[in-house]
């Protein structure tokens, strides 16, 4: 057996995140990320995934690198690849909250491609990793993410109360910072949680509070839409929004557009 083959086999047995680090060119994570995005845009998917993994592995706390990597994974339907990658990245960086968030999102990303039972397992596993992220750093984003995940669960699982609790904390954190449009998602989800609990009046109160708080920043279509619907139409709308199995946007791109707050 020649040396090259031994080396190749040794590399293949490494965790994906470590492999990405070891095989990364001597470039900065930012450069690797830019090259990965370019490769993705030009359809060089294999190259894009490798470069984005390298960028994310070298900068595990960069939420954006991981998020864009996952979008490339979604396009390739290579869901298990990103799950395995973030699992190994989490093992290498056990204190990183952002890695846990991306790991959880990787499970969420796979849900539309799974059967009805596997969807439950994926969603539940995602919640586990969102909780781990909160345990490490209870940011607005982490609390919003877990809270909104709870709201997706059908009422029979009685998780909406947990969601409302997370989302109230997320809104509370957001109100300590300069208003940004993406905070509207937390108000929307918190109201949705109250809807799930059967309290539409409370839901409308929360949505209106979001409009009052953030209306000056820019249009808030999610909140406006909810407030404009009568009870029956609202129920139908929210049921469609929370239909099991549909793809949930996890690209987080609004954050980079407006700038991330804690």
């Amino acid at each position: 057996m020649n040396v090259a083959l031994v080396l190749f086999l040794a590399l293949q047995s490494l965790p994906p995140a470590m492999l990405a680090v070891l095989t990364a060119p001597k470039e900065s994570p930012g450069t690797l990320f830019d090259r990965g995005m370019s490769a993705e845009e030009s359809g060089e998917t294999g190259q894009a995934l490798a470069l984005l993994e390298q960028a994310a592995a070298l900068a595990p706390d960069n939420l954006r690198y991981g998020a864009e990597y996952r979008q490339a994974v979604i396009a390739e339907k290579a869901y298990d690849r990103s799950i395995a990658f973030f699992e190994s990245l989490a093992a290498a960086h056990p204190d990183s909250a952002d890695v846990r968030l991306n790991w959880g999102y990787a499970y969420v990303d796979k849900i539309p491609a799974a059967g009805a039972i596997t969807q439950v397992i994926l969603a539940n596993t995602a919640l586990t990793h969102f909780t781990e992220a909160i345990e490490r750093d209870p940011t607005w984003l982490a609390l919003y993410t877990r809270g909104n995940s709870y709201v997706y669960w059908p009422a029979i699982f009685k998780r909406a109360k947990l969601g409302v609790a997370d989302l109230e904390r997320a809104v509370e954190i957001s109100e300590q910072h300069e208003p940004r449009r993406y905070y509207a998602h937390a108000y929307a989800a918190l109201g949705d949680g109250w809807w799930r609990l059967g309290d539409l009046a409370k839901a409308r109160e929360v949505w209106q509070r979001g409009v009052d708080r953030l209306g000056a920043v820019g249009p808030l279509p999610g909140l406006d839409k909810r407030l404009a619907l009568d009870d029956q139409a609202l129920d139908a709308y929210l049921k469609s929004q929370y239909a099991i199995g549909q793809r949930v946007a996890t690209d987080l791109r609004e954050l980079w557009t407006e700038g991330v707050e804690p």
Partner: protein
Amino acid sequence: MRPIDRPAPAGGSSRAARRLLPVLLLAVILPGVPWHAAAESAPGAAESAAAAYFEDHTTAAGVDRPHHNRSFHNPYARIMEGYTALGAAVAVADYDGDGFDDLFVTDSSENGANLLYHNNGDFTFTEVGKAAGVSEGNDATDASANALWFDCDGDGREDLFVVRFGHSQLFRNRGDGTFQDITVQAGLDRYLNSIVAIAFDYDRDGDLDLVLGNYFQPVNLFDPDTPRFFPESFETADNGGGVTLYRNDGPPPGSGPDGIPRFTDVTDAAGLGAHTGWSLDLGHADADLDGDQDLFVASDFGTDRFFRNNGDGTFTDITEQAVGIDTKKGMNADWGDFDNDGLFDLFVTNITDEYMREGNFLWHNDGGLSFTDVSQETGTYDTGWGWAGKFFDYDNDGWLDLYVANGWVSGGPDNYVLDIFQLIVDPDADLADARNWPPMGNKTLSGYERNVLFHNLGGTLFRDEAKRHGLDSIKDARGVAVADFDNDGRLDLFVTNAGAEPNLYRNVLPTGAHWLELLLEGSGANRAAIGARVTVTTAGGKPGAPPATQTSFVNGGNGFASQSTRRVHFGLGPADRAERVEIDWPSGRHQVFEGVAADRLLRAVEGKPRLEPLVPGGGSPTAAPARGTKTPSNPDPADPTDPADSTPGKTPKELAR
């Protein structure tokens, strides 16, 4: 898929109401006129704003004995009882040849009697199971799960196969109202946890073969020697009972005219042995119109399977090509041409509830053995935890409607979903081990769900009309048998319910869309003509007219826990005659009958040049108590069913293939 572009029938509810008024007036003024006569005054008036078309006659008809679930006395009883809340089944056939369809209804409790309800001809039934010798289908080591009538020996009498968790039973119809257990002599004495059986001539050798769908592996459920007999996965389980194909080899040589047919297990040789899933239902049809019967297997805990008949006694699994691999809980397989394009489509129920949104499949046959699920587009996606789903034209408008039985276990206020959830999310759980499954106790799982009656709105969309017609029972329904029990041209329903009384719904469609009903008799041992395709063509142009051409076939027991009538039924709407009736017999013979008057029960005998009246009551027209059945008292010179008509050129054409 091909676009489904047929427009909905013209006319809204107000238009229908305008048509209805003269019909009601006629009914009051002319009480003695058969209802079909009123129809001629109001063609196409099949819609009513509020009238219910069905009445519950369960008790009045004497068929209200409840079904009982099986209890177990083994270490796994606490979970077994929940997962075997099945076995409420019904099979329809005219076992005594008197012109009225009878009922065989199963129980599942250890001492529960299976019931043979003889149709008295007046929409009442008499239970004769014990006297007939077919009542003893349950004991300590066997539980009835289903039943199938099929003429195993080609003597023209319907024999009875009782499908069991355990040793199934084959009863030969002696022709005198009694039956002989021939299970052992027929080579069918074998432990299988079968849950469905259908019969068709898979190898086109002229007799009826038997296909069994098995749920569990052949582990003795009553005294299992292993705890590992539950599904290994919720979505990809391959450790079920699969299917068993028994070839009918006919009676042994020298056994004489009364020889008992022998059946041989040819599952592997026919290419069906690789399927080891949790079969729940089987459905056969000639999906590609090549003259042989293809097979669909609805499977729990994993993908359904589609087997193309190769025409040489073997099948090929073409699931991926035909319908794709799924992870759902397929529970029903009924074929019917819901959009009247000449190709048989397929309805499969799955689980759709708050906690799991699988959705049913309405597989539109695109041709070339390719199918597209149009359940979302047609509104048939969500019925609940579905069981049997049967195509039938309840309002005789020429479009196949769909009745779906729903609901798993209706228990107490606690929900079993939360228990099963803990098992689902446990990555280390060994699902195959029955000991790991949480007991159901009195908990509810998708219980109290309503049955659904989908009215076909022109082949593109269905609308639930169950509540209007009183068909929205919340019992834990299982099987749906469709038959015209009173020979009035209106299709009735018999619905079985687990652990509860069944429901017999009489169709009292008040307006008079026309219809045609055919009982086929084939040549050779497949006297029941299972697999025969019937195409009816009517003249178009009248308001509310159905499509010019409809296609149906004689099916050998399709649909979960329920075998419907062997007759083929066509709603003709305002058309008072069929311009053409074409029959493609399993033998390959093609016959055409022209100018067939509507509103008749007719018998088609393969090779005979004329359709014959199917006279209820043992052959005497005057014995027929049916309402609205047209007897041949008014000969139509242009009617090929009329024995007086011998005009050259009007006789049927026999066309070689």
